[in-house]
């Protein structure tokens, strides 16, 4: 239990088609991340699964049953919102217990389950506080607690970590991953942050203007992007893409090579360039160069390096790591 399937799901807002047609299968227990740029339809797709938006056409199946016409409260799903969406007039205890109250569970059982969820999320000391008296991370945990207490078929997360600071985001990411391992429930997670996608997902769904660009494991998407969009979207810094002679001699319209798959030399190489900016991160160094006949390129090197702005460098790609794309942006096999 916990499998979700979308069959030719289309969503239109008036004349505007946001999702032109999506087919997707999510297996029970999978951690699936919907990722894509702003406005690509990932939140809309999540809301269609949740039932908060009606599909214009197509079907949403939950555990093999057609849930397209079923309201959000009857789908057996739990959602964690970006803004937490806690009830400000209720205590933490009442917030977490609210879904159980709606399900007409007895007061004793509600108390038991709320205490258990609070203990799991380190919220026991905050049960009588109101959301306004909590920090961002605590509020997020209350939102998660409200979701897990329902024992849902699947969890839906809509950019839950966007409002947190960087350090807290890393911590919460680990907590959500731990939660997934503990509960073994299907989780669908929406984010625009590819680091979250790469680190948390069993499977990533990359969306581009409402359509699925590619579905695969994080490393599949990283190492074998199906198209230019996925190639450029996954990976930070972005993959270097080149047209012209460098591509045509390799039998492609466009080639792509990741910054860490480029060798740097001060003596010779395929491309000659001038260093514009060098970023030292300690563990890595990013070199931004202006390459003759190609344009800007980014190179990643481990540790610290000697290049400095204005210097001439020569870049050579590792041939086995060059990705080739045709004139439609599709991968050349």
């Amino acid at each position, binding site marked *: 239990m916990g499998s979700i399937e979308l069959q030719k799901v289309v969503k239109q807002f*008036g004349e505007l088609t946001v999702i032109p047609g999506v087919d997707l299968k999510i297996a029970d227990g999978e951690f699936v991340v919907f990722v894509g740029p702003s406005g690509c339809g990932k939140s809309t797709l999540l809301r269609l699964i*949740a039932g*908060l938006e009606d599909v214009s056409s197509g079907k949403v199946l939950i555990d093999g049953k057609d849930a397209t016409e079923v*309201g*959000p*409260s*009857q789908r057996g*799903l*739990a*959602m964690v*919102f*970006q*803004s937490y*969406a*806690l*009830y*400000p*007039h209720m205590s933490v205890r009442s917030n977490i217990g*609210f*879904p159980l109250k*709606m*399900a007409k569970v007895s007061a004793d059982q509600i108390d038991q389950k709320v205490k258990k969820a609070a203990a799991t999320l380190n919220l026991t000391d905050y049960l009588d506080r109101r959301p306004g008296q909590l920090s961002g991370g605590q509020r997020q945990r209350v939102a998660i607690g*409200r979701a897990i207490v*329902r024992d849902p078929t699947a969890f839906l997360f809509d950019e839950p970590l966007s409002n947190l600071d960087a350090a807290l985001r890393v911590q919460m990411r680990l907590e959500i991953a731990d939660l997934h391992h503990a509960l073994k429930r299907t989780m669908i997670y929406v984010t625009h942050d590819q680091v979250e996608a790469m680190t948390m997902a069993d499977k990533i769904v990359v969306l581009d203007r409402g359509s699925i660009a590619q579905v695969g494991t994080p490393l599949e998407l990283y190492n074998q992007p199906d198209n230019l969009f996925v190639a450029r979207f996954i990976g930070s810094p972005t993959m270097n893409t080149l047209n012209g002679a460098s591509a045509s001699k390799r039998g492609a319209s466009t080639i792509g090579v990741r910054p860490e798959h480029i060798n740097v030399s001060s003596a010779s190489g395929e491309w000659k360039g001038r260093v514009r900016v060098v970023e030292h991160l300690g563990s890595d160094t990013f070199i931004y160069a202006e390459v003759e006949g190609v344009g800007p390129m980014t190179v990643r090197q481990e540790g610290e390096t000697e290049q400095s702005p204005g210097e001439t460098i020569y870049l050579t790609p590792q041939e086995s790591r060059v990705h080739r794309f045709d004139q439609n942006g599709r991968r050349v096999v």
Partner: protein
Amino acid sequence: MARKTTATQTSIVTIVAWLIGFVMFFPILWMAMTAFKTEVDAYTMPENWWSTNWTLENFGIVQERSNYLRYVINTTIIAIVSTVLGLLFAIPAAWSMAFQAETKPSVAWSGKIWAGILLIAAAIAAAITLSVGWQLAERPLLGLLLILIIGVPFGYWIWTRRTTDKLLWMLSTKMMPPAGALIPIYLIFNRNGLIFKDWGAVDLRDYNLIDTFWGMIPLMMLLNLPIVIWMLYTYFKEIPFEILEAARMDGAGLWEELSRVLAPMALPGIASTLLLNVILAWNEAFWTLNLTNKYAAPLSFFISEYSSPEGQFWAKLSAASTMAIAPILLLGWFSQRQLVRGLTFGAVK
């Protein structure tokens, strides 16, 4: 950078504000002072402002001649019941306008939805036919058809307007002078008017809505409904929709969403709206003077009894007016913060 104000500027502004406040309050102050004067002194103006024989006799006479308590009870019933009834309609209406997606009718809708629309249109048309009471009683089907032909397209047109247009249209009904609607409403309310007459099959002449709570309460409710809906709408728009969506995901039905989530969050707004509506209903004079007489007569009617053809009894009129406005003045005084907050909420983000 914040504007700096000197102590002198602050003093001047404070004095001016007090002066303006005093000027606005002055008529009420004068009326209250006149209530404690004799009739003769009330006529003499303005020489004896302070050099007068203060007396409480006017209040006694007013209470003797008319049962003040009964008028207070009538006004309280009309004000509070019409307010509560209005909120029962206004909260769902404002919720729908604030949170439901604006849907345009579509031929892709199911037969069930279209059948529902036609049934509701037919019910509204039937209600209009009855209330208008044309001689179409002899040709009812023709009348119904005519009203459907007018009503359904009009209803469709209203439905497809944007929410703000719908709100403006509702508020525009308040822009019409009440006198324009007096005759039709009087005819609807009255015995032998449009409804309460001998229909042949049934004789309704023993009934009417003039001078009844059954008439005044719905009328007060409907008069103030546009303002109540508009105020609640502006409050509801401030509530993040995600919280209601979270409630839906948590299994809350429509009733739970409204009562356990929306209403508690919007309580300040609902309280402000409630207070304003009570004040508007309490102070209503035009409709109460024209449509009540004795049994459902509120305090505005009570005041008007002292403005008679025999002459103006200023002192007694002032005493009656002071007694009429005292309760609502006290209510307004104690709830002024809530009222101001309610009226200015949303003006500044």
